[in-house]
């Protein structure tokens, strides 16, 4: 068991090649990133603006969402009250909750935020969780292996899992991606009787949200939830009270969540390439020691 000069050069050559190749790979990734960035600039993601000052808590969005996605019909006895916090689950992708606030009872709709850089998408190792070019974050059945890493990673705890199925699916709001493909708008937006929901590009929606705040500064709390949270999200929120009062997570960071793992992932390729070379070097160095001591003996 040993390494002769020829082998050594072979390994050296391979290391060199992988270094060169690795660099090339990095370069092309860099390029990809750039074009990705450009794409983002060229085309604004679509999203939905939810105005909780307009919402009347009628649950129409819950009902049409269930119908649209073939989920069980919502239980009529299960309506938003200030006593319980209802949560989305494998049978409902969106819920309305009522909160007692400093400005009376306020409703808040919860569903997937459709982040610009979704943590679930970065977590998914099969690319089942996918941010589409248009903006919705969708789940693709044929790719998912059910590891639930998306659920660990999502800062909003959105993805739900069918624990009692033998072929479980991840359930989450898809912003009605199929309807969007056919030129439609999300079912909840289309059917909201109070016009609390509005569909459009993020840019338009942010403009509209700012306009509403400026025109009615007494009505609105001066913050658009989703503008910066988690690096920006597709769902944007307006509220009459601070968002903490209506059950929103206010400890969400403004940097995107995938940025938390970027440093680690970036370090993998260099370590994969340089560490074997270093180990081989140490091996060579200590081997000569060993043969020396053997000679002395």
């Amino acid at each position, binding site marked *: *068991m040993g390494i002769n000069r020829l082998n050594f050069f072979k390994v050296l050559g391979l290391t060199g090649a992988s270094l060169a190749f690795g660099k090339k790979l990095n370069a092309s990734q860099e390029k990809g990133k750039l074009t990705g960035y450009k794409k983002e600039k060229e085309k604004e993601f679509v999203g939905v603006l939810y105005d909780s000052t307009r919402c009347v808590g009628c649950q129409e969005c819950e009902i049409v969402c269930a119908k649209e996605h073939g989920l069980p019909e919502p239980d009529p006895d299960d309506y938003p009250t200030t006593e319980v916090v209802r949560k989305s689950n494998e049978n409902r992708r969106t819920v309305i909750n009522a909160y007692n606030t400093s400005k009376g009872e306020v409703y808040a709709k919860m569903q997937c935020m459709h982040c610009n850089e979704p943590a679930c998408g970065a977590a998914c190792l099969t690319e089942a969780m996918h941010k589409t070019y248009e903006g919705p974050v969708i789940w693709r059945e044929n790719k998912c*292996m059910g*590891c*639930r890493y998306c659920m660990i990673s999502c800062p909003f705890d959105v993805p739900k899992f069918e624990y*009692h199925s033998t072929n479980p699916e991840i359930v989450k709001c898809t912003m009605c991606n199929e309807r969007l493909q056919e030129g439609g708008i999300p079912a909840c937006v289309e059917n909201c009787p109070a016009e609390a929901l509005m569909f459009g590009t993020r840019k338009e929606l942010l403009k509209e949200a700012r306009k509403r705040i400026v025109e009615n500064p007494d009505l609105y709390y001066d913050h658009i939830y989703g503008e910066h949270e988690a690096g920006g999200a597709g769902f944007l929120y307006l509220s009459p009270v601070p968002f903490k009062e209506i059950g929103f997570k206010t400890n969400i960071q403004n940097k995107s969540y995938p940025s938390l*793992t970027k440093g680690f992932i970036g370090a993998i390729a260099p370590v994969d390439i340089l*560490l074997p070379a270093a180990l081989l070097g140490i091996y060579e160095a*200590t081997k000569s020691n060993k043969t020396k001591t053997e000679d002395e003996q």
Partner: protein
Amino acid sequence: MSQAINVQSKEKRENKIWPFILSELKPKGKIFTPFNIISAPIMLVGIIIIFLRFWNGIGSVTNLSQDVPWGLWIGFDVVTGVAFAGGAYVLVFLVYILNMEKYKPIVRVTVLNGFLAYLFYSGALLLDLGRPLSIVNVIIGNNFGVSSVLFLVGWHFLLYMLALFLEFSPAIAEWLGARKLRKALSGLTLAAVIFGITLSVLHQSGIGALFLMAKEKIHPLWYNSYMPLMFVVSSVFGGISMVIFEGSISHKVFSDQFEEGSHEKHNSILHGLSKICTGGMFVYLFLLVLIFVHEQNWQYLSTKMGLWFLVEVIGFVLLPMILFYYSYRNKKILWIKVASIMTLVGIILNRMNVSIIAYKWDAVVRYVPDWKEFIVTFTIILIEIWVFRWIIRRMPVLRKSPSWVKDSH
């Protein structure tokens, strides 16, 4: 003439290989030992539960929920188990890279342990996957989620299993009496070692990196951006503690496999390992204090979770470190073993804290594993021990290589 005999004997060998393997499959030794009598029913129940899991879904046998998607099967079997298997990469580094011949007698058994651990942990992982068949998506590469930490962990995991198998394969060749094959396989050892260590460093740290995106969900005393580094460092002394613990048991249980005088040799190995553990734990504690001060975590210490944190760090890192150092200085082999067990408890605490206990620590309803989850975990460990025992009784792992091997392990 002699050539003809050679050919003949070769044919003979080839004709004998399958009957040989079949005869080796039969159990050796007593069947009704206390260990077997206790472990067999547990394994039977465990296998029934595994069957139920595939029949009715994961929710039917676990207490997992929409809020707690990863439970005991990931937190203990995978996250903790991988740290325990870290001994394999540390020892091959000592023996093959640093050429420390002293540790050579235990390298083969450690590599075997590592390989079996990975084999069974990935088995446990498959139980936990909702759609296990789709795992081929990651392997055949129609969907490479290269931005995913889990993707990198998975691939490094897979390749490392191959490296461990290659490192162990000369023992299989010796068992089969395949001289040429052994020569070829042992020629691959160095390459397997070098890539194995690299893959290990990356997936050990990767398991820490898995939780980086769960920033607000893990208690700030455990969550920090240095988790990958901390996981690698703790896998060094965690893995070695497992080697000490497992070696001490093997020396009793498989005493027939050892030559005379190996006991003293083993003690001297343990003595050396205790020094490495002391060093590793010192580095770990040093980093821990740095992170603690840097993140300004004083405020949490007076809380319940803070106390729990102190139990982990003082009781099961600092204390065993002092014990390792003390027993290294005074050559107290028994205390080395005690320290190794305390360290193992510390690793379990740390990994369970990050993945389960400090994960959504403030939730109203906390996750407590179902008894069925425990049984399945025990079943996996027990099957692993059974396979380990089967191999030890047959292959030259603890005992010396056959006489025809020149560079005996």
